[in-house]
């Protein structure tokens, strides 16, 4: 498998919404290549016909009634968590 290039690191950071510094891009490039080289060893396993495991206990399609549950949390309490708020809304920087 190809080595992860600097351009790919920048692309991944963009997908992950991380504004990385030049130093971080360098550092993560090295780390990721080492880690990927290690996890590559899975390619030697024959997994043909094997089903993937996403869940380790025998629970399947757990659903609940489509009803509003009162978690005892008010609008004010949740708004208080926002870094900025104004007029009963979460304030964000100008989009346009």
């Amino acid at each position, binding site marked *: 498998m190809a080595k992860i290039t600097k351009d790919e690191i920048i692309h991944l950071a963009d997908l992950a919404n991380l504004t990385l510094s030049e130093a971080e891009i360098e550092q993560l490039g090295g780390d990721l290549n080492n*880690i990927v080289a290690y996890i590559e060893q*899975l390619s030697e396993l024959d997994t043909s016909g094997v089903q993937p495991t996403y869940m380790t206990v025998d629970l399947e399609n757990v659903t609940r009634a489509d009803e509003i549950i009162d978690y005892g949390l008010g609008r004010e*309490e949740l708004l208080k968590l926002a*870094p900025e708020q104004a007029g009963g809304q979460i304030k964000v920087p100008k989009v346009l």
Partner: protein
Amino acid sequence: MSEIAKIVDRVKSGKSSAMEEVKAALRRAEDHEGYNIFINMTSERALGRAREIDKKLIKGEDVGALAGVPFAVKDNYLTFGAPTTAAAKMLESFDAPLQATAVEKLEAEGAICIGKTNLDAYAHGGSTENSYFGPTLNAVDKTRVAGGSSGGSAVAVALGIVPFALGSDTGGSIRQPASFNGVVGIKPTYGTVSRYGVVAMASSTDVMGCFTKEVADSELVMSIMAGHDERDGTTLPNSPLQVPYLQKGKMKVGIIKDCMGDGVDTEVKAATEQYVKKLTDAGHSVSEVSLPMYKYALAIYYIVVPAEVCSNLARYDGIRYGYRDGKTLSDVFGKSRDGGFMPENKRRIMIGNYVLSSGFFDAYYLQAQKARTLLINEYDKAFKDHDVLLSPVAPNPAFKLGENTADPLKMYLEDIMTVPPSLAGLPAFSVPAGKTKAGLPVGVQLIGKRKCDAQLFALAKEME
């Protein structure tokens, strides 16, 4: 009587009070400040709760099975009384609007949280060095790591500040620090304890557990925390801890050969063998078992877990809560995340995005989930002939502060024996097995069949 039973007895009989117990625990925490165990104390709320419990006691009301027992909580459980930071700048001043189910259940039995313990930010790490608030020091040797990610909780119990503390375990985060500090650490079967109100790391392997000095205390705490929760769809409908293990007689224990090879510290091996001897002396049969898939477990883990981590950490966008930086909207996303996360968080987000990205998904993520099935099949086969499997907890005793920080892969390799049971959702306990010549604690890991936690408790108690 166990440590917790003694406190409950003192409080209920009037020999002491919840207030005295809490004040004493807060004093002990202050005396050990140099270890950097706590991120924030919840003193004011703890004293208030102690006052309430004492009032109820005077009136003769029932105050629960943990009346007046002080405890500490890993700072990724949402609690009242102090911010819940997950040891990251992102949540440095996050005041949780609700409490984790596990904490609520313990409080309902009269237990009192005195503070929030240090961890690797977002529970990413095995040393508590990846904390925004600096590392926690090992309880036995201050030049060494506490282990992690639940390092603060392990050290709080080891130093006797509190009789029990909560941790979370995704790939060893309870078991390894328990081993490094010489205490009992419990990772139950996946789905035993509600994850509601705990900062999510990897949803398919995250489990909630605890640290104590004695197994009986862990059993009590876990029996209270366990149980179905409508707010967590992955909790088991019938808690494995509510079914006592009654089968008498000797157990068949399998020692995992693949964890006793080269690369494992000789003193760790010696302590493991010493524990095995205790088992055989007690009449249990011990035989070797080989699980060749162990060789691949760490590679599986470092695909599956970062994939889930990057999804779970996508919610931290600097908008609704948490740290915010930047002037334009896209700037806010990128800069808040870059500034709010620790380097290890970013590393895992990047790996996760890589293994999930189109073109690589089949080769990494899907292949890992299939390999996970092969590992589980091997466990199932081994459990046909064995009741319990045994291995060391970690290949080495607590390492020096800074020893593994420069090389992330080297740090990951410390998890090599704790990640396999996590990937299979199995219960796995870390119990003290001995000490190295230098006095460093070494734990042994007991791994049970799925939902057979009660059996592990029976064996661990017998061997204590």
